[in-house]
């Protein structure tokens, strides 16, 4: 399987704190990889580096055969590498539909919103909202959504331009059982029907075991384990203890 995303020896320090100390990982085409680690292991920093929000001090990132180590986040989105945030910050003045429309207008490579009618974009956005279960709330101000719906909106934004790889940062944590099941189902269908790859970041090994093809565990800024996700709860029994995500 060829690698869609490949990070090699990523190092990142904030002041004197070395958060990442040479992390390497890869995600193949149409693969779901889990990134596991306890709180403070550097998962979110890794997601920020992979998505281009921050740049690493050392190491490089390859995506689709090209080096993207210093490509900014918006350009990565347009290239099909998108992410969700653990703490969503919605646009307070826009509705749900408009929020996703922004991504459609700016995030579609090549076309840049030109030569397409607003109706075509609108239909596209509506179909994304139907899939993510936000269609009924499409005229709501994004700021008025519940936590579960905000996660759905993050999801809708991330998949609105047919990405190749989506980084999901703790997207399933602190959700109701219903929301979690629906989002997991959506992820599975996107993976199976559309061939989208996922990097699923979580501190919940049971969830990763259920959803992923492969899993990587980091701790203290280093990769400590990699292998079958089903083994994850067994390999790291200590980690299942502080399962705060449910």
């Amino acid at each position, binding site marked *: 399987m060829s690698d869609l995303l490949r990070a090699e020896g990523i190092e990142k320090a904030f002041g004197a704190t070395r958060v990442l100390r040479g992390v390497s990982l890869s995600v193949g085409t149409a693969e779901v990889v889990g990134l596991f680690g306890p709180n403070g292991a550097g998962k*979110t920093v890794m997601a920020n580096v992979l998505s281009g*929000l921050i740049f690493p001090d050392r190491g490089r990132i390859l995506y689709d055969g090209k080096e993207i180590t210093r490509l900014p986040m918006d350009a990565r989105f347009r290239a099909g590498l998108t992410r969700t945030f653990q703490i969503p910050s919605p646009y307070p003045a826009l509705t749900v539909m408009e929020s996703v429309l922004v991504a459609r207008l700016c995030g579609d490579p090549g076309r840049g919103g030109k030569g397409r009618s607003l109706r075509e974009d609108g239909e596209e956005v509506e179909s994304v909202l139907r899939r993510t279960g936000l269609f009924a709330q499409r005229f709501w101000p994004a700021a008025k959504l519940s936590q579960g719906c905000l996660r759905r909106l993050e999801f809708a934004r991330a998949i609105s331009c047919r990405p190749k790889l989506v980084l999901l940062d703790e997207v399933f944590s602190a959700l109701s059982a219903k929301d979690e099941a629906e989002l997991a189902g959506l992820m599975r269908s996107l993976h199976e029907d559309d061939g989208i790859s996922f990097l699923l970041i979580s501190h919940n090994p049971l969830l990763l075991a259920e959803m992923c093809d492969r899993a990587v565990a980091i701790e203290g800024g280093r990769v400590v384990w990699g292998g079958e996700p089903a083994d994850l709860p067994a390999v790291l029994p200590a980690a299942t203890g502080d399962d705060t995500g449910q």
Partner: protein
Amino acid sequence: MHPFAQVILDGLFTGSTYALMAAGLALILGVVKVVNLSHGAFFSLGAYVAYVLSGKGVSNPAAAVLLACVIAFAFGVFLGKSFINPVRSHPFSVAVGSLGFAILFEQAAQMLWGPHPVSIGSGPPWGELSGVVVRRWGAVSLLASAGILGGLALFLSSRWGLPLKLISEEEEIAGSVGIDVEKIRYLTFGFASATAAAAGALLAPATSITPTMGRVPLILSLIVVIASGMENVLAIFLLAVGLGLLSNIGAYLLAPQWSYVSLLTVISLLLLLRPGGLSAADPGRDY
């Protein structure tokens, strides 16, 4: 003796007073976590207090500084408590509102004392060193600023300064251990405003007093705080003295207004070179 020596000595005095004001601005940035554009207005307030007092025959700088501090503290606490604290998380409201307060003061001063520069007598010089006059305001300014700054540094490193440090570094912890964060914020705002007013009162004999006179020291303090950060009082002091010297030399060699122009140029360049600015003043979190 070259007249340049005089310029340098006066610049030293002026700069030390600006350091006082910059320290106040840094305190607001650290504890209240806002960029305060009303700081210059308190400087002008102090200068006008000194002007009014000297018009009534009181020319003792200590009296002017004390009265200016009291008035500015009261105004600062009021502004901090009733405006800055409630709108703290809205950068627009803070920036435009604090500028609004400054403009409110400028217009009020213009209506009270007229738009034209006024000045007060600077008193007899303290002494002369081989042709260089040591002016009374200058010596008083240097001593008073160094005294207040030293006291502030001592206070911050003492037990009493701990709540301020905690708020500036670990806000959530400060709230959870029972510190009244809001109260400390507006008290800090009042104290910092008082430092600006003290600086204004100290420098009043040396400058022409106009409603908009606070803009130059405001920009200067902003440069100091952006360039030197807000922890190190000594760095603030040295940088403010350096800038005070430079602007005095600039005013001497070119014209007084060019010192403002050069400060504006410096702050623009500084912002371009350090786009991150100060992380504490940025309420939006990225990580």
